[in-house]
Structure formats: C-alpha cells, structure tokens
C-alpha cells in the first residue's frame, strides 16, 4: 500500500543506484580512519579494474538503501565492448577523471573544514550524527541482477581524503562573527555538505566513448547531472579545438541509419541510457553547421517564403531583429512551415505525399479534400515524446524518393517499429527547414539560451586562444598521445612519432621527478587480465611518459578546480599576444580538418614576428595526453624562463607539426606541478585566486596519498 512519506530531500530518481557510497563526514574527524578509507578506495579501484577486464563482477549484496534493481527496460550497457577496447590512454583519462573528482571533494572538504575550524576550536563532535556510517552502506555495485552493467558505471571514488591531516594553511581570516551566526553558519554548512553528499551518492555515471571527427576516440566519464554543454566544454579542454558554436555531440544509430545532434541543455546520460546492450550507436564530437544556423541566418527559416535574393542580402541588423522578434518575446515563434512531404506508410513500402504544416503544438496535415484552416488540420505528431533525427541514405534502405529524410521517434525506440515516423523532403534545404523548425517547436527558448552560452564560450576561447597563440590548425585534433594507436589514426593524421617525446624529454630540463611506478600501478595491470590481450611490450614502455603525467598533475590538483584559471594566471605573465597574426591563424584554421596545407607554412614563419622562433625544435613535446580533464603536464619549468614568453607555445609546435605532418599539439598548458617552481613569478603578476594558498601544502601530501595508495594497491594485489 502506498505509504505517504514526503521527503523534500533531493532524491534523484535513478533507475538503479550503482554509485558507490562513501562515508562522507566520518573521516573528517577521525584522521586515523584513513586506512579504512583507503581500503574502500582500493575496493573501488579493484572493482573498476575488474569491470574493465572481466565482465562478471562478483555480485555484491544489495545494499539496504539501494533503490532497487530495475533493469528490465532501463539501463543498457552500450559500452561494454567499447570498454574492452579501452586503451591505456583511456584508462589514464578515466583515472584522471576519477582523481579529479576525488581531489575536488578533498579540496572542498578541506575548505569547508577550514571554515569551521576557524569558527570554533577544533570540534570533536563535528560531523552531525545522521550522516553516520549506517547511513551509507558499504560501497558496492549493488547490481545483483545485472552484474554485466558494472562496466558502464563507475562511481567517482569521492573518498574523503586526508585533507584534514594536511590542515591546509589558514585561509584569510573572517571577521569574527557572533556566536549565533557562527553556529547558524556551521549548521548550514554541515547540512549543505550532507546534502551534497546525498546527492552525489545517488548520481548515475556512465563511461562514454566519444568518437572524434577523425575516427579516433576519447573516453569520458559523464554523470547524470552533466549537460551536453558541460561535456562539450570538457572536450574543448581536451581537444583544444577552436570551440566555435558548431561543435556538438551527436548520436548515431547505425541500425536505423539515424543521426541527431544533442542539444546543449540535454543531459547526456538520459538518451544514452536508452541504448540497447548490443547497440552500435555512437556518440560523435563534430562540427554541425546546422546546430545554430537558425540564429546565424534566421531569415532562412522565418522568411523562407521570400525570394532567395532578399534572404541572401539580409543585413546583420535585420537578422538580429528577426532573432529578437522570434525568440525574445513572451513566447517563442515557430517558423510557419508548410509543404508537401512524403510520408512512409505504416508497414508498407510506399511513400505517400501529404501537405504538412508545422505549428508550435505539433506537425499537422491537411486531410484529403479539406482546407488548410486550423480546425480542419489533423495532428500528425506532437513533440512531447519524440525527438527529430536525420535519416541517412533512406533511398536505399526504405526506397525513399530522396535521401533527404527525417524521422520522429521516441528516444527509447532503437529498432524498426511502427511507432517511428518517416518523412521525406524534396531537397536538403527543405529538410533542414523542417528539422530546425521542429527543434524550435520542441525546445523553444532553451535553444536560444544554448546558443548564447555557446557564443560566450566561443568568444572567451577565441580571446584565450589568441592570447596563447594556439595555432591548432586542426581543431579537434585527436589527442596526440605518444602511445596513440600507432597506425590507427584516421584521416591521415600521422601519429606522433613515438620517439619524439623521449627525445624531447631528453632535451628539456628534467621534470620534477615523479614516482614512475605509481601510475602504472593504479592502472589495472593488463597482464593480469585474461580478457584483454597482454599489451605489446612497446606500449608498456610508452606508457611511462604518459603515466608520469598523472602524478605530476595530481599534487597540484587541489589548487586547480579546472585547468583553466591557473592557465590564465600563467598567461598573465605573457606579454600581450600578437593579435593579428594569431587571429588569422585561428580563424582560418578551423575549417581545415586535414593537416595544414602548405600555405600555412607561410604562416609559421609569419609567426616569426613573434619573438624567438629559434628555440622551436627544442620545445617540449606536446603534452602526452590532453585527454585529461586535468591540466596536461606542464612544459618544463626551465623552458618558461628560457624562451621569450610571448612566443611560448604557439609557433614552435606548429612548425614541427607541419614538418612532421603530425597533428598539431594542443597548446602546452601551464606548468601545473611546475607551479611549485613557477608560482612565485605568477604571484607577482596577478592577484592569485584565494585557493592558491592551499596547493603547496596539499600538493606534497597529495603525492603521499597517491603513493601510499599505490603501495596499498600493490599490496592488496599481491595478496590476491
């Protein structure tokens, strides 16, 4: 019977909670709990490892609060096979993701704690009782019914970290508030923290393999709160593409030959959850000019009836007005489309012509012998439950009159079904008109909001790329990882010569010595995995440089919520960017998907106007794996002072790229861990963000933490 229990706690309704739950606050007070925490973390890591390799996890006992196991329809693991394909770089990336999460939390806790500490003497009773252990079942996968789902979802090991031990330096003192205020504040903080924990614990996460436009792929961890926009931003960081507004994530369905660009405000996890287990669907990161065409050339859609010339000669101001008129009013205006389209008859193979009309409330058609007046229209489909997809090569597949087809279907339908509606247009232009019109009707204002956000992002990034004179002529270059699948790169991008990094490392002043063992140990050792073929020896060798990057970043992580702010501060050091040239570069480069054409070479020297092109060849290698959400490994600290900073990253790699025919590397990111050395100079220039104070202290201990973790893992593995 129904039990009415109203709880206002933000319970996310996930079909199955597969996230690991951790003990949130307990560790804060009992520093010695760190061992327990470690073992938890280890458990998670282990699971992770296992799930990567073997598909069958030892079924965990369902945890008491785990929301139940309902998998009959919902969650399908589309990524099982792709997970098997995961290469180390993916694992690295994943690990980095995980660690980033971890460190974020760590930092957050540290800061919170700090605040509290300041407010009163170290309170022994800090964590509120309710958040005790009993509340949080032992971390478990809790998916007894479908163990094979494990691979899809990892939780972020949000382990509570040794932050308290570190006791980061005191933050700027607050003015002493009154006692009540302090108490109130503390309470609020605690509650907030608890709530965050609660939320976090129930978040569904997916490991998603994103196919780049050149056929390579990146693996990301996506949680259900992330919008497509977030993921795009993430990918921007990883790929160092030009971030223009056309970049989008799309899903393809090879079985139905469908494709659809996700809207930026959508959650990615939702639609992906609808994929079937054996799905060959893919998530693709690519530029889609149709994504925001409506805002660039609104007249094509709103004035489609006008003659071509008027449309073409539209002034920018008029375009703006048109957008304003249709998107900024109290209501969104949907372009009034009407026209004869072909409709695929249910079950039959024929296509029948009908006069269709688009209205905000749906697509209608005019029944035979009736007029076009509203009351006679028959509703063909409403948009609440369907998405619009482009159909590919339907002429072949369904004997469509043309290849310009679009499809309306419920996102969960993945196979042929009578519930899919197929429509066919005379030409691409008409198809685009309809698909865009339907998107406007379905998403309304969000579309415009998305566009504005994208524009902002693009503007910031352009400014930013100009500053650092990133001359990525190939926007979405696959991460030029040294260990990239050697010849597997599509589109003629030669892989980075494996020797290069080594050579460069040799050239460059020695980086801060990382514990080289550590990363390899964190990664699931492939040899132990019966499913994965043992990695070829060279790979193992190559892993080292990339792996080193892990520890190098980690220590400094707490400082860097994203890799962005620090880079900025770093950049602040630089002399003003050479605007014109670099702008030219970056604005011209995006269209070139292929390796930069020869003329670009001309630009390279052109960049010679920038100071000091000579040191070019000695520059550090492109970061081994920009796939990290973390700042890629820094260029060698020595390098920064050595070269004229203005010239810093840009021209050199470019030249070498052109020479090597290799994809241009992402701009060498700021020296993250080198921050240790270079921070002082950074500090001079710009007021450091408040959080910067923590790193130096947190950093080493973070390293400790990691190495201890590594040791522990090694030990554990040894026991097994």
């Amino acid at each position, binding site marked *: *019977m129904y*039990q*009415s*229990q*109203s709880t*206002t*706690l*933000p*319970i996310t*309704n996930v*079909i199955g909670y597969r996230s690991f739950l951790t003990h949130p606050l307990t560790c804060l007070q009992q520093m010695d709990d760190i061992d327990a925490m470690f073992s938890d973390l280890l458990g998670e890591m282990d699971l992770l490892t296992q799930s990567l390799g073997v598909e069958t996890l030892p079924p965990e006992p369902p945890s*008491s*609060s785990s929301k*139940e196991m*309902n998998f*009959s*329809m*919902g969650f399908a693991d589309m990524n099982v096979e792709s997970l098997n394909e995961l290469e180390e770089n993916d694992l690295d990336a994943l690990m980095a993701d995980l660690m980033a999460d971890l460190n974020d939390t760590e930092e957050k806790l540290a800061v919170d704690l700090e605040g509290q500490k300041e407010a009163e003497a170290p309170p022994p009773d800090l964590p*509120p009782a*309710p*958040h*005790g252990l*009993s*509340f949080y079942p032992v971390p478990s996968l809790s998916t007894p019914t479908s163990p094979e789902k494990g691979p899809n979802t990892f939780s972020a090991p949000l382990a509570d970290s040794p932050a308290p031990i570190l006791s980061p330096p005191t933050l700027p003192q607050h003015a002493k508030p009154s006692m009540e205020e302090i108490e109130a504040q503390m309470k*609020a903080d605690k*509650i*907030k923290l*608890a*709530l965050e924990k609660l939320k976090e614990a129930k978040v569904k996460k997916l490991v998603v393999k994103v196919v780049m436009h050149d056929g390579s792929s990146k693996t990301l961890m996506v949680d259900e709160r992330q919008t497509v926009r977030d993921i795009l931003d993430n990918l921007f960081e990883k790929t160092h593409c030009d971030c223009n507004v056309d970049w989008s994530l799309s899903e393809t369905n090879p079985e139905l030959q469908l494709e659809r660009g996700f809207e930026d405000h959508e959650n990615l996890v939702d639609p992906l959850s*609808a994929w*079937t287990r054996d799905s060959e669907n893919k998530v693709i990161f690519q530029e889609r000019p149709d994504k925001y065409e409506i805002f660039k050339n609104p007249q094509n859609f709103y004035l489609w009836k006008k003659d071509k010339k*008027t449309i073409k000669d539209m002034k920018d101001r*008029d375009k703006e007005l048109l957008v*304003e*008129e249709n998107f900024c*009013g*109290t*209501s*969104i*205006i*949907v372009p009034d489309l009407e026209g004869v389209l072909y409709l695929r008859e249910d079950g039959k193979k024929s296509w029948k012509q009908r006069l269709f009309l688009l*209205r*905000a*409330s*749906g697509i*209608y058609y005019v029944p035979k012998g009736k007029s*076009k*007046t*509203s*009351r006679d229209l028959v*509703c063909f489909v409403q948009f*609440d*439950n369907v998405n619009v997809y482009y159909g590919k090569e339907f002429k072949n597949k369904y004997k469509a009159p043309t290849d310009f087809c679009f499809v309306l279907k*419920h*996102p*969960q*339908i*993945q*196979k042929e079904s009578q519930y*899919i509606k197929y429509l066919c247009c005379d030409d691409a232009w008409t198809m685009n008109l309809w698909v865009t019109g339907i998107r406007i009707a379905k998403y309304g204002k969000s579309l415009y909001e998305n566009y504005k956000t994208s524009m902002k992002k693009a503007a910031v990034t352009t400014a930013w790329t100009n500053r650092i004179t990133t001359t990525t002529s190939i926007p979405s270059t696959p991460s030029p990882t040294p260990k990239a699948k050697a010849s597997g790169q599509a589109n003629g991008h030669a892989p980075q010569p494996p020797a290069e990094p080594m050579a460069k490392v040799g050239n460059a002043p020695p980086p801060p010595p990382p514990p080289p063992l550590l990363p390899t140990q964190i990664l699931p050792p492939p040899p132990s995995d019966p499913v994965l073929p043992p990695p070829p020896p060279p790979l193992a060798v190559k892993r080292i440089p990339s792996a080193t990057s892990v520890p190098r970043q980690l220590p400094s992580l707490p400082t860097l919520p994203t890799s962005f702010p620090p880079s900025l501060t770093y950049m602040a050091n630089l002399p003003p960017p050479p605007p014109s040239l670099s702008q030219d570069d970056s604005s011209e480069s995006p269209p070139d998907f292929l390796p930069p054409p020869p003329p670009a070479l001309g630009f390279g020297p052109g960049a010679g106007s920038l100071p000091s092109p000579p040191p070019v060849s000695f520059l550090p290698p492109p970061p081994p794996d920009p796939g990290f959400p973390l700042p890629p490994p820094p260029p060698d600290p020595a390098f920064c002072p050595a070269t004229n900073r203005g010239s810093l990253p840009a021209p050199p790699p470019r030249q070498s790229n052109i020479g090597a025919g290799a994809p241009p590397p992402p701009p060498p990111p700021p020296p993250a861990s080198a921050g240790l050395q270079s921070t002082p100079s950074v500090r001079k220039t710009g007021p450091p963000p408040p959080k910067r104070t923590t790193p130096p202290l947190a950093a080493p201990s973070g390293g400790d933490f990691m190495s201890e973790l590594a040791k522990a893992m090694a030990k554990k593995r040894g026991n097994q």
Partner: protein
Amino acid sequence: MAAWDLSVAVEDLGADAPPITVSVTSDLHIGGVILKLVEKSQVKRDWSDHALWWEQKQQWLLRTAWTLEKCGIQADAGLIFMPQHKPLRLGLPNGLNLRLRVCFSGPVFRTVLGICKMLNIRRPEELSLLRPVEEKKKKKDKDLSEELYDLTEVPLTSVSRPCLYNGMPAHFADSPKTEKVYKMLSVSQPAPPPEAIAKLYRPASVVDKAHIHSRWLDSSRSLMQQGVQENDRLWLRFKYYCFHDLEPKYDAVRLTQMYEQARWAVLLEDIDCTEEEMLLFGALQYHINKLSLSEPQTMTSSPAMDDLDSALQCLEVKLDGADSSPQDMLENLTAPELNDYLKIFRPKRLTLKGYKQYWFKFKDASISYYKSREESLGEPIQQINLKGCEAAPDVNIVGQKFCIKLLIPAPEGMNEVYLRCENEEQYSRWMAACRLASKGKSLADSSFQSEVQSIRSFLAMQQTNPNTHNTHTDDSTSINTHSLVSPRYSKKYKAKQLTPRILEAYQNVAQLSLTDALLRFLQIWQALPDFGISFVVVRFKGSRKDEVLGIAPNRLIRIDLGVGEVVKTWRYNNMRQWNVNWDIRQVAIEFDGNVNIAFSCVTADCKIVHEFIGGYIFMSTRSREQSNTLNEELFHKLTGGHEAL
C-alpha cells in the same frame, strides 16, 4: 471693449435649468469666464474638475489663458460647463463591468492611462477602448440586469505608482466592496456555462473580424469629441499584441485580463486553433479555474524556489527534531510505494488472453508484478519502467471499468499494456503514479496527492449521475468541460468523449502553478499562427476587389478574400515610411527596395489603420529603451496623424 452676454449651460444644475448668462468682453480669458460663471451660479463646491465644452465645435476649451477672441467664441456659441471626469461603464476582457470615473476631456490615450493606473494595469499603451458590439434582440432575456461594479467613489490617486496594501493598490483596500472588485480583476473568472458561450457573438469570417476593429476609438481625441456620453458602455481591451515586460509579480491584473482576453478569443473562435490546441487550452482553463478558486491570493508564489534552500530548511527541521536518528533519515529517503492486486492485459497479435491478476508493486518510476503478494519479496515476473511512457485513461464509470492504458517505449517500439483497477480509489492512485512516473518522478514527489485529487475530480465530472456518488465534490471540480472549449467542439463531442481528452491534455499542465499556467496559456495563444493579427478590409490601389489587410505586431499581410490565403507579407523592419492622405483617405506605404503599396480602407477609418501601424512601431521602439517612462509624445507623433500636427 464692448461687453456682451455669453450664456453657458451648467451641467451640474440639471438639464432643465436655464443657462447662466455672464457678461464678458472678447479679451477675457477662459479662466475668467469660468470664474464669473462660478460666482454667478452661487453654488459652493469644488469646481476644479470642470471645464467648458463647446457643443457646436465639439471641442473642449481647456486653455484657460486663451481669450474668447483667440478661441473664436462669440455670443452664439453653445457652451456647456461640465466636469472633465465622468462615469463610464467599462467592460473588461474578463466580462466584468465596472462603473468608474474617467477623463472625458483628454485624448483617449490619456484616458486609458488613467483607467489602467486605477486598475493597476502596467503598460497601458497596449490597451485601448472600443465600442462594444451591439447586442440586438438581447434586451428581452436580459433586462439590463447585468452586474455593474461601481468604482466611481474611488478617489483618483495622484501617485504615479500606487502603493500596495494587502497585495492590492491602496485605493482598492478602502472598503470590502472595492476589495472584492479587485479580486475579481486579478483572479480569473470561472467558466461560463456553455449555453452562454453559444449565445455570444462570434465572428464567422475574416470580414466579421475586420468589423470588430472598426470600433476602436481614436487615441488622439477625447471621449467627448468622439461622441461618448456619460455612462456609455465601452470595452477596454488589449489592442497591440506585443506584451512588453510581463512580470507576474506586479502584473496580477494585467496578466489576468490578458488571459481572459485570450481565453475569450479562443472560446469565441476569434482566433483559429487546432483540436489539439483547443484541448490544451481547455485543460489549462480547467487548471487555472481550479487554482484561482483554491488559492486566490498567491500570484506571487515563486515556483522556482531555490530547491536547495527549501531542502536545507526541511533538513534543518529534521535535524532539530528530537533525536532524529540516521534510521529516520534513511526511512525518509526511501521512496514510498504502492502495492495492490491489479489485472494486467497485454494485447498481442493473435492472442485473446484476457486480464490476469497479479500482485503489483509501484516503486520509483517502475511497476513490477508478482504472482502473489507472498512472492513479492522475490524476483518479479516482470518489471516495467514507466519513464517516458504515455499513460492514458480507459475509463467507463457506468460500466465500472477503470483501466490505465500504458504505452511504454522500448527499443523495439512501444509496448501496449493495460492495467485494470477495481475502483475509482485505486485507479486514481495508480493513474497518478503512472503519470508521475512517465515524467520521471517518483511517488515521493510532492505533486502526487494533487495528481490523485485531480484524477478524482475528473472522474467525478464524468459521472452521468452525480447524485449517486460523491455528492461532496465541491464546486470547483464540477465544471462542465463543454465550457472549456469553443462551441464548435462542444457540438462535435459529447462530454463523455471530451472529458477524457481534456484530462489527457491536462496531465501535461497539472503541475503548473497558477502564474505559470496563465503564462503558459498566453504562450500557446501567442504561438498560434494567427495570433495578434487585426484585420481590416481594404481596397488596394489598382485593385478592383476588396481584400483584407492583416496588421500584426511585426508585419502587414495581404489576404485574398476569395481564397482566404496570405498573398503577401511586408515587414515593418523593411518599411521606409508611411503616409496617409487624409483627403482621399488613402494609406501609402513605402518599403525597402522600392516597394510601394497604397490602399483605402473599407471597414475601418484610415485613422485606425494608421494608428495600428504607428502604434506597433511605437511598441517596438519601447523594447529597446529600458526606461520605464512612457514616451507619450512619441506615441502621438506616430499615431496622431493630422491631429498631432
């Protein structure tokens, strides 16, 4: 200078009283005349609102410094000394009739400003006054007994922004009577019976609609000048369909009246919509009705409350509560569930299996079923996730059939599943759960109870014989669904067919707050293709037949009367200039690219067309400038025509 006698009728003395004669000279100014007049009348009262009206010339003598000579007044002038503010019967968009004192001497634009200030409607430039449609032969059944709310006693406030008192402007808070009026202004009215709707005038064609627009008063001239007399009836309506800066917090009356105008436009088929849209409008009306009756004064409730904050508060309460243990918290976190024996039926090809009974459990967003209650701890026979599904009622109350038709998406297509419940109670709960689940919400969602309630009330509406069951249903729920749709659909469908369909549409809007529902209604209205078009029958230069000119907020459209289709569209953005030749009453417009059109107006005066075009251009200037002050001068410049010069 020679003195001569000027006789002036003083309205306040009564129609039969002889005019007062004062001795004046030609260089006496109007103010002097008034002074003499007042002295001679020997009536002690406040004459400050009074002014002289020149009957023959149909004009006010408002410039008191002008001399009689300058005004051209001689002894034969028939002057009337009367108050500038007089009572007027005003029909509002929601059908309410008010009697209030309005300005008869200023331009109508100014009069409307005054009315809107009094009624607390912001952005008064979007409204105007028009003469009502004459009601022929209605006198019989309606012997002038229409309700009239008198606001003439309300003092005219001179404050620019009326201060709020008890959530209403201070001048309404004076007496319970006026408070009641304000409530009627700011809360939407219950739906009228369908018979009443059917009786009201409905424009049958574009030409009919065009005739309505011939009734607008001229904004640049006064009411007196346009022959409006004291206590005449006028309508106040939104005239320009671009609603600027709609802010529910301040716009209670404006929003409500806008909604009412939209609703009546839909109900009276003034604007065409499809069946699906009509049903959604119906559902929204039902929802709005219900909410306005249940929560009258909560226009300011913000649905987008910071959820963290509220959650925090709630959690805080729990933490404060005595010995709240982790277990309690845990219990609160686990979602509630429904458990019942229900019957399930899955229609499949070639099988005629009937309903089979199982033990059903509803938890989170999915249904699982078991052979029996005892086995409910084990593995379910099947579990169905309802997220993204469609849940439709399949109910026949007379036949006591309470089925839920579920269309559940699966990779292979949609699965059809029927759940049969025993009774209304059970059905309401399970249906509500299915609805919430289809939107991805669990039973723990706060809207569950209200969803159950609304399903119950809809069931009650379907009962052919309301006396047998549930006589306790309150008035709010016993709305006739026929009064939610236009007569066309009332005729087309029986209540039995209509109600489930409205209910179906209703599930998409049931969670909206009152304000959101109002806004949603307006949005759907504004998204209709024909929204905001005012029609005028015109004859284009060089054309021999009448055509219709549609004036929309952003464009002009030319409609062929024969075909009924849009022939041509011109956008204001491309407009270079427009001119009116007042002598031959022709409007000429020039667009970019040497496009020139000219037409004479058939149904409406060309001043009305001119004012529409100028008005819309004025409205578009206003969106860009952020200041809240109304540029009255610009409005008159754009709409005034030769009067403005």
